[in-house]
């Protein structure tokens, strides 16, 4: 294990230990937050008894749909925009101001259009992520060396083959960054939407537990959400490291 990883783990453990002390000494009262060892106990009980598995599965499924659609559509749109300078110039101001628009404000509109199902949550997760993917992929495509494009032409690759075999592979580190952003936004969009107006899902259960002072449910669910998010990001980060090491950029 590298020293930086040891320090990272040490910082997390120190933070948990500090919380434990603050909770046990009642600096933080138990209605606000139970001691971390109680949270861990409730977490394991929740896992052992399979409570909320259905809700977790439903939320993760929606997160995955939002993530995959934002990622795939973002890459395709970014690649097309890169090929058409005029369209890109027209769209650039929208991308620059996109994140100033509170997407959640459209939630009532989405409910009117899609109803009270999972559609609005997925759409918000997708909308939050897709522009981040487009901007990241455009950034990557801008950096493809001209000589690689010339090499593709010398090897008689069509524009589509050039995209698939040269420019997108060159942008792989940017694709992984885009994937990480899309995943993070999918989590924020889907779980956040479930908080506001849903009748099921992890976000709804966390919100419901909060309004009922049910810390034995709320904190284990938050912990599970954290672990899932960290695990998925960890996979992408590990993949990114392998890729960058091959390219001498690690």
């Amino acid at each position: 294990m590298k020293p930086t990883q040891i320090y990272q783990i040490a910082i997390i453990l120190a933070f948990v230990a500090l919380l434990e002390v603050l909770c046990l000494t009642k600096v933080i009262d138990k209605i606000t937050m139970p001691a971390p060892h109680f949270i861990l106990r409730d977490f394991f009980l929740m896992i052992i008894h399979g409570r909320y598995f259905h809700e977790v599965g439903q939320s993760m499924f929606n997160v995955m749909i939002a993530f995959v659609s934002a990622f795939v559509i973002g890459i395709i749109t970014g690649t097309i925009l890169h090929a058409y300078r005029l369209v890109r110039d027209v769209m650039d101001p929208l991308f620059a101001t996109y994140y100033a628009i509170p997407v959640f404000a459209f939630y009532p509109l989405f409910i009117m259009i899609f109803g009270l199902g999972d559609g609005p949550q997925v759409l918000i997760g997708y909308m939050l992520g897709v522009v981040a993917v487009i901007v990241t992929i455009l950034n990557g495509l801008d950096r493809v060396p001209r000589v690689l494009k010339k090499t593709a032409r010398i090897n008689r690759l069509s524009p589509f083959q050039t995209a698939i075999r040269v420019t997108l592979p060159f942008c792989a580190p940017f694709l992984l960054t885009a994937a990480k952003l899309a995943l993070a936004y999918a989590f924020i969009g889907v779980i956040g939407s479930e908080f506001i107006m849903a009748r099921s899902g992890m976000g709804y259960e966390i919100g419901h537990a909060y309004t009922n002072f049910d810390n034995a449910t709320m904190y284990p669910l938050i912990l599970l959400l954290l672990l899932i998010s960290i695990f998925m990001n960890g996979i992408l980060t590990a993949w990114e490291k392998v890729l960058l090491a091959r390219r001498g950029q690690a």
Partner: protein
Amino acid sequence: MTSSAHVTLRGVTKVFPASDGGPGVHALGPIDIDIRKGEFFAVVGPSGCGKSTMLELLAGLTTPTEGEIEFEGKPIRDIPEGVGVVFQEDACFPWLSVEGNVAFGLRRSNLSADEKARKVAAVIKMMGLSEFSGTYPAQLSGGMRQRVCIARTLVVEPRLILLDEPFGALDQQTRLLMGDEVLRLWRETGATVFLITHALDEAAMLADRIGVMSARPGTLIDVVETKWPADRDSRIVERENFGALTSRLWKSLRDESMKTMGRMGI
């Protein structure tokens, strides 16, 4: 086209249009030259004289504004079959191993997978990269990466090899050794080689004939025959007349280089 000409340029001119609709930049020409089959032809000239433009025209990467270029008797309209290019910049694909980079050149080939693998292995061996076939470009030196690019070009057995300052980013010793390798490959493949370089000694060492270009718009102001034997290598620099040859090249180039420096305000 003369009987032994492999590549012919007739009145070749390139003018880059100005973005503001102005008169444009006259970068090259008119150029008239025949390059013989199996010849090693080098072009030297001051910075910005249109050397690389000339190479891109031969590669079919761009089209002349005026004039005609023929390769094996056929006019070049697009990327011609049988032409390979090695660029100055590192053109290795960083996500592919040495083997993957070399095999990339055979992507369009109709050969079976076994035949392709055999061919790739043979070229990798010829370039002295066998030990590194599974290595990624980032783990190789600049000289080795350039050898990978040369291998990727050679694997398709081009009849015309275009070299655009291929050793420009390498140190002097590596350049001399790479020069030896290029001469060996030229002899082994029998291909016609067209080299762009700004290094007079490199051109003098490698080429059968050297075209000297004027400042922009680049035209050929002199063509020097080196009369070196085909089995030469970098030790040719020890010859007495090597100095005389580079001096002649510099004499032709000096005024043109001064013009370029004057334009650049140096």
